């Protein structure tokens, strides 16, 4: 015995075996599932690095014999989408110009909405909130055409501004709910103390609430960036070809009927389009989980 005091039977930490049946089953399942989900991505990456002659040989799982970045370059700057042939780059910048203002404006408005609903119980607050939440349950299809008329009357149909307005409006119910729940979970006494200290509506919002709300802002940002970036329906309905967002352009590239199907270019274009949400997830995944938890649990 190393130890001076001797115990009979079980003592100290319970010993664990690395290759217990439980571990083998658990990790085995995880590895199989991970493999299953990664195969499509693998095929996409591999195919995008092959030349067309190699693809025609048909071994979609085989790694490229000769690595070429030609398809990526073509997807980004040369692929044809209907009228113009300058690749996805145009769509990328369109998407950036749509996503950035939509995300900023919608989060800004929704956070103030949520703050007002949580802390300043104005008359009719409950009715307002109910109507807003009801909006989350109306299918988008129902509102497509009325929205077209609305935008036309406002003179912003077919413009980037119009699409930004649409994204902001449609993001409002869920974002307001998110912010309201988060602000409700903050201790009410903090708000009261700030009122006694003479801070007003905006003073409390900017000086007390905002600094405490980073996690929920990250959650809202992730939801909005991925949601708006991945949007196809609104993009195709409310914009014109030269300001199509990246997703619509991707569809036009992949579904173009003239000429040869360039699988490698299609794969590269698809990965390029998915890269932005993917990056967001990798960078802020941890904050995302923390923010979701913070919104759900009181404290």
């Amino acid at each position, binding site marked *: 015995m190393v130890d001076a005091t001797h115990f009979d039977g079980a003592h100290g930490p319970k010993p664990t075996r690395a290759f217990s049946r439980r571990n083998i089953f658990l990790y085995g399942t995880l590895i199989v599932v991970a493999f299953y989900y990664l195969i499509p991505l693998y095929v996409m990456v591999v195919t995008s690095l092959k030349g067309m002659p190699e693809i025609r040989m048909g071994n979609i799982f085989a790694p490229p014999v000769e690595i070429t970045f030609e398809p990526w370059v073509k997807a980004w700057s040369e692929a044809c989408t209907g009228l113009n042939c300058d690749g996805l780059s145009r769509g990328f910048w369109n998407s950036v110009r749509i996503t950035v203002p939509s995300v900023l404006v919608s989060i800004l408005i929704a956070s103030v909405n949520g703050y007002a609903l949580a802390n300043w119980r104005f008359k009719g607050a409950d009715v307002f909130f109910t109507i807003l939440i009801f909006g989350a349950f109306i299918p988008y299809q129902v509102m497509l055409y009325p929205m077209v008329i609305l935008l036309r009357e406002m003179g912003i149909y077919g413009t980037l501004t119009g699409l930004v307005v649409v994204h902001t409006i449609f993001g409002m119910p869920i974002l307001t709910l998110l912010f309201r729940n988060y602000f409700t979970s903050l*201790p009410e*006494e*903090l708000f*009261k*103390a*700030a*009122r*006694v*200290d*003479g*801070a007003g509506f905006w*003073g409390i919002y900017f*000086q*007390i609430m905002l*600094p*405490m709300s980073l996690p929920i802002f990250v959650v809202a940002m992730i939801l909005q960036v991925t949601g708006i970036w991945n949007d196809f329906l609104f993009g195709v309905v409310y914009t014109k070809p030269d300001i199509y967002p990246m997703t619509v352009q991707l569809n036009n590239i992949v579904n173009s009927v003239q000429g040869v199907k360039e699988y490698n270019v299609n794969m590269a274009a698809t990965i390029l389009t998915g890269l932005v949400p993917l990056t967001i997830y990798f960078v802020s995944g941890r904050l995302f989980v923390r923010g979701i938890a913070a919104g759900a649990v009181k404290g």
Partner: protein
Amino acid sequence: MSNTHSVEIKNLTLSFGAVDVLKKLDLTIGQGEFLVLLGSSGCGKSTLLNCIAGLLDVTAGQVWINGKNVTWAEPSERGIGMVFQSYALYPQMTVEGNMSFGLKNAKVPKPEIKKRVAHAADVLQIEPLLNRKPSALSGGQRQRVAIGRALVRDVDVFLFDEPLSNLDAKLRADLRIELKQLHARLKNTMIYVTHDQIEAMTLADRIAVMKDGLIQQLGSPDEVYNKPENLYVADFIGSPSMNLLEGVIEDQFFKAGDLSVPLAGYDFSRQANGAAWFGIRPEHVSLGSEAESTDVKLNVKVEVVEALGSDTLALTEVNGTRFWLRTSGQSKISAGDAVTIGFNAAEASLFDKKDEKRL
């Protein structure tokens, strides 16, 4: 308006929908007075404090502070400072930031802010903590900072909403003394909400015992303890609570079963016969030889003994109801002992059975 009234509540009603939380409440608090609002949870004491602070809109009635009608005024314009149970310190600001936040909002010049924060920090002995964030403070330190935040505002009325309830017992006792000293030094009006009767008894100039949105009794700790106005107050104040026997008053005697107490020594506020409650505090029950000279003597059996060191509590039974008595800490009684107890009508409280008011 006389200047001696610091806070006046006039006919105050607050309703949430159909529920009246406060019912036509009147309360006048003098300059420099320490008033404690005492009651169990849900009695409306915190609601009343929030109404005084202006954090809740009243349904009817008025709130006056320092001779001004502040019923519609913003909390920051009322000349109040408030301390909350959960401290409510702004987590992202330092202690200094917390204390100066209100002054910055009031656009007080910087040198003046610095002076006042330094003064408050000195009074509360928190100078070494000024650059820390609240998360790096202990519970007691946090509550001190919260008090400091009210202190720097240089107001006439301090409102405390159960400020010590989140602290452990020892710290609570220490801070209680400090609060008392602080009040003696500052001489501000203080309104203090608590459910802890020890805090109420030790801190208050006057206690307002509340129940169901009404003030049951308003008086000095001595009055509330020794001459409770009604059965609720008698039962609520004191631990263990007052022994209550059910019976009838007949010709200057209180009769319950075999028990008959002569009431010659009792100071009646109104003469009454008929069904009544007889209440006597455990410490007014004498034991053994001390019981020789009392109005009434009883032989009872001790059922439970709680030796607290400073004193000893014994549970007995009189007329089928629980009956506590308090005796010296060194007393050597134990469960199962047969003892003689006695008490005087002069130290008792009598309540009418019907309206439960003091007789």
